[in-house]
């Protein structure tokens, strides 16, 4: 089976300016966590990465400490433009959105007892949770014909969300199995 979209050359050259602006925009609309919006920008709008490449880069960042999507921003910048690219993407992602978000958050925090505000926040959270689930399903689409991939995705979900196991346990148990089976499948295909 051919590897889909294993390109390293995006449609347009990735400039420092475009990295800064793309990650600034992403961060400014990042309700419910930036992952949803980063995928939309990097995969759907800019075509810098395929869904497959995006999921692989996200997996890598999952095993780094710290906020995952911030690490992802650094990695996307580094992939296309090295250190300068990382700094441009990171600056776009953090500086202005943090100042605005912090001001808004501090303001809301001083009105946290307001009933209407709590109702609106609850509605936004419910929708944002749906966006994250939808993004996960989108990332799964390139793997929909791999039963082992679907199985391990379901097991990871069940372990964390249903059985409420600690993240570390889920990862330590599932990861070696998933990698071993992926390795066997690759060896069988070759």
């Amino acid at each position, binding site marked *: 089976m051919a590897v889909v979209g294993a390109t390293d050359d995006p449609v347009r050259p990735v400039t420092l300016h475009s990295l800064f602006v793309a990650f600034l925009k992403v961060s400014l609309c990042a309700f419910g966590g930036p992952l*949803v919006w980063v995928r939309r920008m990097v995969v759907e709008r800019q075509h810098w990465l395929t869904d497959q490449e995006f999921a692989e880069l996200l997996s890598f960042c999952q095993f*780094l400490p710290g906020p995952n999507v911030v690490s992802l921003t650094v990695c996307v910048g580094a992939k296309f433009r090295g250190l300068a690219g990382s700094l441009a993407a990171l600056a776009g992602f953090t500086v202005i959105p943090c100042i605005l978000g912090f001001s808004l958050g501090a303001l809301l925090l001083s009105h946290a007892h307001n009933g209407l505000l709590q109702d609106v926040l609850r*509605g936004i959270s419910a929708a944002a949770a*749906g966006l994250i689930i939808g*993004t996960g399903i989108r990332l799964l689409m390139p793997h929909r014909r791999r039963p082992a991939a679907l199985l*391990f995705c379901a097991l*990871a979900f069940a372990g964390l969300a249903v059985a409420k196991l600690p993240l570390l346990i889920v990862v330590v148990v599932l990861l070696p199995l*998933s990698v071993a089976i992926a390795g066997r499948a690759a060896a069988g295909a070759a």
Partner: protein
Amino acid sequence: MTAPAATLLGHLALLSLISFGGTPGVLPDMRQFVVVTHGWISDQDFSNCFAIVQAIPGPNMILLMSLIAWKVGGVPAAAAGALATFGPSCTLAFAAFRLWDRFRDAAWQRRLRRGLVPVTIGLVIAGGYAMARVGDVGWASAAVTLAAACLMLHPRVNPLWLVAAGGALGGCGLL
């Protein structure tokens, strides 16, 4: 800068380097540290900070840590708290990515990536599910989450409209 703020910043920088699997996993630790061990902020303030950063745009974990730091040591602590949250981990991410990318065509790495991805996606979906369970008080909220997830699969739908619709339904007292 006050002594509590300095202690908090040191803790944030440490968490930045040891929080494997992302910062959501360190929330229980964070709560223990600022609410129980040191008593800098109340449990209610901590929960409010969390609810607010989920509902406003921006890098939510950085905003959460800076809001908590703000409660402890004012605006200078908030700025330093944000830097402490992502500075150490970003430096590490850059170095690690350079090394990882050098071997991107190696057979072992292709295999590793193939195995990692499904588990990662399961964790992402579980994260969304956990967030829905925290906020959801009834079937109406669950329906909003489900509808948003389904509409998200359509590439032409701008997710901002989904967020706005959720906020509007909530504001009308329907959730």
